């Protein structure tokens, strides 16, 4: 009886546990840690935070110097995302430090970094580790005398109206951002060694990074095209990072204010910040551009079961289903550039898959006349989407001894020759022996 009770208890706890672990898999109800310099940001940037909340995120606001800070407990991460809105913090409190933030990203979690002119070395070094170098001059800001935002006071042209976006529906959403972005802060350049960083918002060619209050004595180090305002990184483990040089870009004030770009007559009632930041945060938190490939199948044409080995010159069907996460559900992913390789040290077959618009991708081809251990390989790397790279191993064997043709038409002369020789020999022996 006691045994039974224990067994039941174990079964129940197992079910509960599996439920718990299962819910971690789904992409709703995720927690984000927001680190602030000062709790007033919570209200001054409330539109941005509310939009996150309305999309189902639990936000946990903490001061960056809070002594109880910790990203993980019992080696389980407590958060799915981290927002660093604390540009001036010199040292995180608690167990958090540069290494912990990077480990957080390395284990596949997402990160938003916002800096401004008061950015500390710590924030800059986090950015540097992500492949982005902020201007080293602590007093420098991005200045643009051509495409600044028109305002009542003349100012020093550090409030910029930027509209040089990256062309990617995956990152910025399908709706075009009409109004320019208000940006006030520091610029950065992309590390040449990092191939994963992408400029999302670039400064105009006339922008440069310098101290606005002092006279320019020598040419600024960051100018024009090298100067990036907002960049994103998608790491190889699909962790996403957004780096912005302006914290005020996220603020309610910028969200609401109208914008007119200097030198143009178009005047927008509302800046593009809200749309830009919202869409970008959707991308960062994997609500868009997250692909999954399931049901990789292959079989001989006309069969349904997957064979353990193919023979050379077999005809085979290959299919895979690819879906994209929309924030709520998996939607079919439609594209015409997904390719499959039949690969052994180099691709022997490279086919573009055709799609049925419902997520199923399919192709069929003939196995090459080469035996060996092949792989079906899909290497799909598209800007803004998580990279799909899957491979499935399958050996290809040569013909068996009884799979060759038994009688070859072209060899009939040889068959004939051998049989006539046999018959001739028999007759000859017969005559030789008995004809006297």
């Amino acid at each position: 009886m006691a045994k039974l009770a224990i067994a039941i208890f174990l079964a129940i706890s197992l079910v509960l546990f599996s439920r718990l672990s299962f819910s971690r898999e789904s992409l709703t109800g995720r927690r984000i840690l927001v680190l602030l310099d000062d709790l007033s940001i919570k209200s001054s940037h409330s539109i941005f935070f509310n939009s996150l909340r309305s999309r189902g995120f639990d936000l946990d606001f903490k001061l960056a110097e809070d002594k109880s800070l910790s990203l993980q407990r019992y080696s389980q991460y407590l958060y799915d995302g981290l927002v660093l809105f604390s540009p001036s913090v010199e040292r995180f409190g608690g167990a958090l430090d540069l290494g912990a933030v990077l480990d957080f990203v390395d284990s596949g979690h997402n990160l938003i970094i916002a800096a401004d002119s008061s950015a500390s070395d710590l924030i800059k070094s986090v950015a540097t580790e992500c492949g982005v170098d902020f201007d080293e001059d602590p007093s420098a800001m991005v200045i643009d005398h051509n495409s600044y935002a028109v305002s009542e006071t003349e100012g020093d042209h550090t409030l910029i109206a930027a509209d040089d976006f990256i062309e990617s529906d995956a990152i910025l959403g399908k709706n075009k951002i009409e109004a320019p972005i208000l940006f006030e802060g520091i610029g950065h350049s992309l590390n040449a060694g990092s191939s994963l960083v992408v400029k999302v918002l670039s400064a105009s060619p006339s922008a440069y990074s310098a101290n606005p209050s002092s006279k320019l004595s020598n040419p600024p180090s960051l100018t024009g095209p090298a100067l990036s305002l907002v960049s994103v990184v998608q790491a190889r483990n699909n962790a996403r990072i957004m780096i912005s040089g302006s914290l005020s870009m996220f603020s309610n004030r910028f969200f609401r204010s109208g914008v007119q770009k200097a030198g143009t007559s178009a005047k927008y009632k509302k800046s593009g910040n809200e749309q830009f930041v919202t869409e970008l945060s959707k991308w960062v938190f994997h609500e868009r551009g997250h692909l999954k490939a399931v049901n990789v199948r292959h079989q001989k044409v006309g069969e349904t079961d997957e064979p353990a080995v193919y023979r050379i010159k077999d005809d085979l069907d290959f299919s895979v289903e690819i879906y994209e996460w929309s924030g709520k559900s998996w939607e079919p992913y439609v594209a015409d550039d997904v390719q499959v390789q039949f690969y052994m040290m180099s691709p022997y077959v490279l086919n573009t898959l055709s799609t049925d618009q419902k997520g199923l991708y399919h192709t069929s081809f003939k196995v090459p006349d080469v035996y060996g251990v092949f792989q079906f390989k899909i290497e799909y790397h598209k800007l803004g989407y998580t990279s799909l790279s899957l491979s499935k191993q399958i050996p290809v064997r040569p013909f068996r001894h009884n799979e060759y043709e038994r009688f070859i038409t072209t060899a009939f002369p040889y068959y004939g020759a051998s049989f006539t020789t046999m018959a001739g020999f028999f007759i000859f022996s017969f005559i030789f022996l008995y004809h006297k």
Partner: protein
Amino acid sequence: MAADLKPAWKSSDLMPFKYLKRKVKLKSKQQELLIRVSILFLVYVLAFIARLFSVLRYESMIHEFDPYFNYRTTLFLTQKGFYEFWNWFDSESWYPLGRIIGGTLYPGLMVTAALIYWTLRFFRFAVHIREVCVLTAPFFASNTTLVAYFFGKEIWDSGAGLVAAALIAICPGYISRSVAGSYDNEGVAIFALLLTFYLFVKAVNTGSLAWALASAFSYFYMVSAWGGYVFIINLIPLYVLVLLITGRYSLRLYVAYNCMYILGMLLAMQIRFVGFQHVQSGEHMAAMGVFFLMQVFYFLDWVKHQLNDPKLFQAFLRIAVTCTVGVGAVALGVGTASGYISPWTGRFYSLLDPTYAKDHIPIIASVSEHQPTAWSSFMFDFHILLLLFPAGLYFCFKRLSDATIFIVMYGLTSMYFAGVMVRLILVATPAVCLISAIAVSATIKNLTLLLRTKNKVSQSGSTKATSGAKASSKASLVQSQPFQGNVVIALLVGAFYLLSRYATHCTWVTSEAYSSPSIVLAARGAHGNRVIFDDYREAYFWLRQNTPSDAKVMSWWDYGYQITAMGNRTVIVDNNTWNNTHIATVGRAMSSYEDEAFEIMRSLDVDYVLVVFGGVTGYSSDDINK
């Protein structure tokens, strides 16, 4: 017995005397047969048990590297049957190329072991296939002693045969490749080699089709078992050529060679790995050339017989020989130029020119068993046979016949090859044993004959004086060499001393040098206690237990067979050397800096790298030493 017979002999009259004489004669023949059979039986058993040191000292296991592959394939054969084995495409070795096992191995060994296994199972002996594999080589070594006996009997006499059987049973040169656990092709191939030669010599001696046919089948078995069959297919034509040149051509030779060559060739083509090599490869062209030469010889003989005019025949001969040689040369030239006849392979070249491999095929030269042989290893493997060998040659030359010419040629060519490559000592061993056996047997026979005639003379002198003249002449002969008896006894004692030294040497070599499995290492600790390192097998077991089943393991090629057999994991390269590029790639990855090696390994999908490090225990043949 003699005491028992003598009274009957005296008291009988003519009829019983005749009967008894026959009986006595039969009895002594039976006696001799009994002794011979029991000696052979003892030698047979001795050959088997001398090879069991490793089983007793370690356990019943497969040794070295290649035997693991053979074991794995045999296991597959017994589990899946012959056709699956024949068509086996192994995707676990040579990743990602894979290997067509059925088409790239000599199946003789595996089929032999599987047949033994199935036979035992049929008789309800519940053995494991591993035991069969471990004991296959000793079993065939025992069989080789029987063949050696018959071969010795064929070329000399049954005494030489017995000595040859005894010598080859414990000769270290042979034991090195046929101890229990050394489950390699050579184990059965030496048996097949010697059997082929014996049957061929028998066929030449008798001119019988049946023996030639048997020889062809034996050759087929040899081809199915070992690449060394090339030695047979070159030595036999060479032998035939020598017989032709020395004017010993006979119809017996014609029948034996033609039957053996044609049937042997057709049979050998059935082995997938050999295929059409007999008609396409340069190494086999000598046999074909001699075959055609044989026909020309026969034809000329016939023409000579028909013409009956020496002058006309001379003219005809000149034309015929010129034409034949011309046609042969043109055919060979066209064949080679068009690529139909492949040129000689590297190993063949390196046999003829020992420096060839070093310059052209470093991978062959890098294998330790392909190195030229040192004098010490000759001494180590042959011991007194090295001294007896020239003496045996002397006896052979003294009594030249078709058979002795063969054994002389076999001995000389194989000795040369043994000098070029260490591993070919194995091929030379049977010849050396046979020739030495002739020396031993002939010497002892002569000595005992001297001793016996002397005894007989003195005996007959004392008992009977019927043939007085003969006895006196013998006596005078004896008296002319005063200390002959003592000298003979001293020589006999010396010979037995040498032979007993040989026996102790062989036992010592077997137990010390050739019975270590090399997969389990034994060493003496500081206090003289034995330490066993079973690290290899533990490592492979770790791989088997802890890595995903489709993991690819990269290692130096030495360990490839063992990883697939014991670890059951895919390897990038193994001990088979059919693709030098692949080996070179892995060698490069192993010997370059990490970042470069990493790229190579990525391109080969490597999951694990196996490295052997012997720095802790002082194991010298580790990977750092390569």
